[in-house]
């Protein structure tokens, strides 16, 4: 019988010095994976560091999502029954090709074999599996199954958002022994990359709330990691002071040290000081969140943000360094509004990234649309499946049209045309907008953004 426990209970009652704990960051079964370069189990790194330092038990990490030499996570088409996932009916129907992102279970099995023959310590006594998104439960179930087949009598613990947000589902269907439904080890801590052993990841994720961020960066640089990504909700909080402190205290540590603001960068929070900071070459990427309140885009925030960046000396039309997110798939979407936002963001930052939406279980939006969402299969709540398509009366095909549009717009728009869009609503809206802008359009190749 699977039991629900808290983090505190897990660490105080279910683990001892004699344990050998294997931490797993599982693969992902999904149709599209936006963060192929930016997946790192910060929670496992935090918990692993804590276990080593405090409990003093054996700890190892196997990260299915560790990028390859090119900095990308491995990708393989799923087969058989899993090959496609059909979502929706009628005009809303769409067949999504499904992929495994991350290493295969064969790779994991081989790693266990090599570990077993090389290691003088025994087999793991516990396997702790984390999860980033609740709708990725299928790959977590398969990970549990793979662990059970290879390590029969091991105790399996599920961590992360899946057991937290879908505890009943996890208890009934995961096959784990324990699921952790509450608490975090150290929400303000930074994990140690030493858990990766000799195979270091290409970047380290940072928690700006932590007091140890600077030392975490120093340690990572010593270990050969020079790229750092922020995943906070708001990296510009407190007028950007925490961020500025980290950047200044790490200046000169390494000539190739780079920061990547992949989330949590709010245009409305930008200050002249932060703009100067971002203009420095130590910031390689800046992805601005959508600035909106009550469903209305705050265009003034965009204008102001662009102005500050230009004044700070940045070439904002660059497109490689700056971009802005635009939500799609939220309840209440209209295609016209999405296209309009795209142009605002494009005009402000030079490039746009469409960010598909799904409500977090337990959030206000989730509760507001509870009845509608309950009729949807849990794994179809993936944002890439556009759970609100029927609600918004926008077909999934039309949502995918937007990706093509974004790909097109991210090229140099002037002097290109877009006859390929085949008369869909998105295409018509785009043409109308572009006509109003009176751009001169010629032939152009295509590419999908994501």
């Amino acid at each position, binding site marked *: 019988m699977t039991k629900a426990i808290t983090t505190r209970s897990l660490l105080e009652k279910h683990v001892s010095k004699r344990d050998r704990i294997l931490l797993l960051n599982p693969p992902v079964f999904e149709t599209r994976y936006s963060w192929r370069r930016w997946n790192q189990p910060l929670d496992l790194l935090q918990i692993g560091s804590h276990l080593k330092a405090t409990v003093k038990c054996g700890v190892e990490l196997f990260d299915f999502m560790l990028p390859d030499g090119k900095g990308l996570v491995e990708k393989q088409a799923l087969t058989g*029954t899993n090959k496609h996932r059909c979502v929706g009916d009628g005009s809303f129907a769409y067949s999504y090709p499904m992929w495994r992102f991350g290493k295969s279970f064969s790779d994991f099995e081989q790693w266990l074999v090599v570990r077993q023959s090389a290691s003088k310590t025994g087999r793991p006594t516990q396997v702790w599996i984390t999860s980033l998104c609740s709708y990725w439960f299928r790959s977590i179930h*398969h990970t*549990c199954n793979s662990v059970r087949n290879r390590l029969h009598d091991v105790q399996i613990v599920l961590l992360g958002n899946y057991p937290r947000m879908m505890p009943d589902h996890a208890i009934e269907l995961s096959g784990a022994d324990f699921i952790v439904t509450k608490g975090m080890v150290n929400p303000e801590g930074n994990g140690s990359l030493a858990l990766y052993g000799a195979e270091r990841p290409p970047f380290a994720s940072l928690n700006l709330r932590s007091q140890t961020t600077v030392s975490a960066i120093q340690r990572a640089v010593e270990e050969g990691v020079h790229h750092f990504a922020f995943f906070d909700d708001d990296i510009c909080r407190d007028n950007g002071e925490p961020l500025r402190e980290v950047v200044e205290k790490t200046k000169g540590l390494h000539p190739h040290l780079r920061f990547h603001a992949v989330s949590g960068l709010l245009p409305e929070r930008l200050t002249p000081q932060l703009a100067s900071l971002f203009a420095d070459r130590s910031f390689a990427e800046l992805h601005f969140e959508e600035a909106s309140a009550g469903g209305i885009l705050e265009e003034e925030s965009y204008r102001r943000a662009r102005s500050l960046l230009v004044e700070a000396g940045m070439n904002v039309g660059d497109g490689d360094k700056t971009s802005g997110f635009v939500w799609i798939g939220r309840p209440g979407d209209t295609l016209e509004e999405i296209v309009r936002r795209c142009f605002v963001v494009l005009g402000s930052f030079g490039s746009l990234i469409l960010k598909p939406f799904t409500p977090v279980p337990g959030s206000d939006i989730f509760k507001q649309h509870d009845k509608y969402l309950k009729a949807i299969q849990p794994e179809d709540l993936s944002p890439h499946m556009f759970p609100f398509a029927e609600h918004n009366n926008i077909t999934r095909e039309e949502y995918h049209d937007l990706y093509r549009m974004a790909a097109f717009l991210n090229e140099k728009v002037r002097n290109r045309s877009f006859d390929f869009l085949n008369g869909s609503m998105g295409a018509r809206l785009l043409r109308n907008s572009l006509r109003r802008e009176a751009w001169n359009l010629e032939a152009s190749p295509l590419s999908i953004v994501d």
Partner: protein
Amino acid sequence: MQGMSVGGVDPSILRELSGVYKPFIKAFKELVSNSYDADASEVSIEFRDDFSVATVTDDGSGMSPFEFRNEFTRIGGSSRKWSREKTRKGRERIGNKGIGFLALARYADRMVVESSRPHEFQTVHRIQKTPTAFDPREALGVPISPELLQPVFEFDVRKAGTNTKVRKSCIKIDWTRPKVSISDGVGAVDVEMRVDCRKLAFRATLDFDRLLKLADNADLEKLSDFTLIEVFALPRKSSRGTRISVEQLKPFVKRELRAERRKGFVRNVASRSGLEQLVWHLSRCTPIDYQKGLEACEAIASLLKDASPPTLDALQLKHGKSSETLRRPLYPFQSEAAVTHRDMVTPVEINDGGLVAKGFIAGYESVVFPAEYRGVSIRVRGVAIGDPTFLGAEFLLTGAHKAALSQITGEINVLRGLDAVDSLNPGRESFYEESVDFQILKRAFRGEGERVGGYLGKTIDAVLRRSQARSSLQNALGRAGYIRRAIDDVSAGVTHLMSSGGAPAAAIRGMLKSKISHTNGLASAKEAPFGVPPKIGSMSVQRSQRMPNAAEIDYESGIVKIDTSRPEWDNHIVLFKRRFDVIHKQGSASQSIAEVDFKDNRILVNWGHPARSQMDERGFLRTALAWVLARQAAEGDADRMMEIAITLLSFTTQPND
């Protein structure tokens, strides 16, 4: 320079004899052989940058102008004298057929020979009738100035065939002409001439271009300028030895030497640059030490230790700025060679009827590269005779036995025998079949009749034994892996059904709560042969744990160790959280395809079921497991059973299925 008559042989024969040495390297190596025979310690070969000239310099005993005339350029002249004679250093002479100087005639326009030797040259010249007068230089056969000859020349005249000297008063020598006069009419006389060569050196030029342009019926005696020679006083501080320059190498030779290494992945010597090929072949057919690495391969090293004749101390090759000391390459000592296993090395030791030979033949687990190493190199007097060979065994073998030849290499050094004139062809490229020594060698090497035995047969057997053992092991491991994959597929299929929720998940969950045995006779059927086999090939199997590799074969003790802690030997299946043993049974055709025992957590699979003949092992196991689980979970609902079974059967964990 003056002309010097050579040989007295028809030029067309000279032309034919020069064709004995093909290709260029076979001819060129004769120069090194000559240096070896001259007891040289160090030989240096230098190619001009454009490969137009090759110069070979040695520190051997050298030769006097008379030795050059009488031995170096004499057709057949050395064979009787040298065939069984050793050098002063005790080396068995390599060159004994007396045509070595012609070797390079086809490959260059000219050869220049410079040398000297501090010895006393003696010759006896019989004159049939006296009184008479003669030029001593004609008798000596070498054009040498009177001023140079006079201080070093001595002679006695005796009545022919006796020790009775002719009176000195009737012997006069006029150095102005020069002429020796014998005024007494004493019948035939023997003139014994002695020349002190300590202070004489010479430079001779052989014009090959002229030689080969001659018409067939030209008289060689008329070609006094085919070889031009200059004899001079040896400079005071000059070193001993011989220097031979082969000049104006033919365009095709230069082209070959300049050829570049083939682009891309290169394994064979024939794909290397022209110069690299020359170095390799020269290293294989000259008497030099083995390359370093002798110590690294003990099995071979010990067999070669007492099996090598004396060698040159150093053979250096220079071209442009590069310089290399040549060592004899041997496949087992190459860095890229496969591992040499003791059980695949056949020592060769022959001592029969005057033939003494030692060496080895080694088989390998993979094909030998470079391909030029395949076969057994037979060396006589330290020099390889022809290319590596199987002495015709390749024409008797077929199939796997023949294929095994590509994995065999070796070296046999003939220490005594096989060096007679009737054993080796003039170019020392092959043996004469009728040679008794060769027949002994062949018999020991490959046995008699149409079946290949002997040392080669033993090596082939060793190669095939390994190949069969490895193949059997791979089959066993592959089969186990296949069975495991089938189990994993069904296990993952159950997980997939559970994840999907709904009625099938509920059905599976209900089934897994059961504690009832549903077996019906299969339990008493005999076990089907799965799992770790007791033997692989003819070798016993030993179980082990935590090995670095899935299995290891110990050929010497005949044991195969298998790491049974690996997943492929695990016959359990996990269904959700419950673990079952998968037991393979050889039931009858009328029994069910599989049965489940929820009481003792076993799933019995009937390999005697007729469905087995319709599919491979993996497909059958998946079918059996899927069927029995679907049947149990569906509890009589046919549609549910089909739904579950189809999902389980179509689920696979491998992307390439």
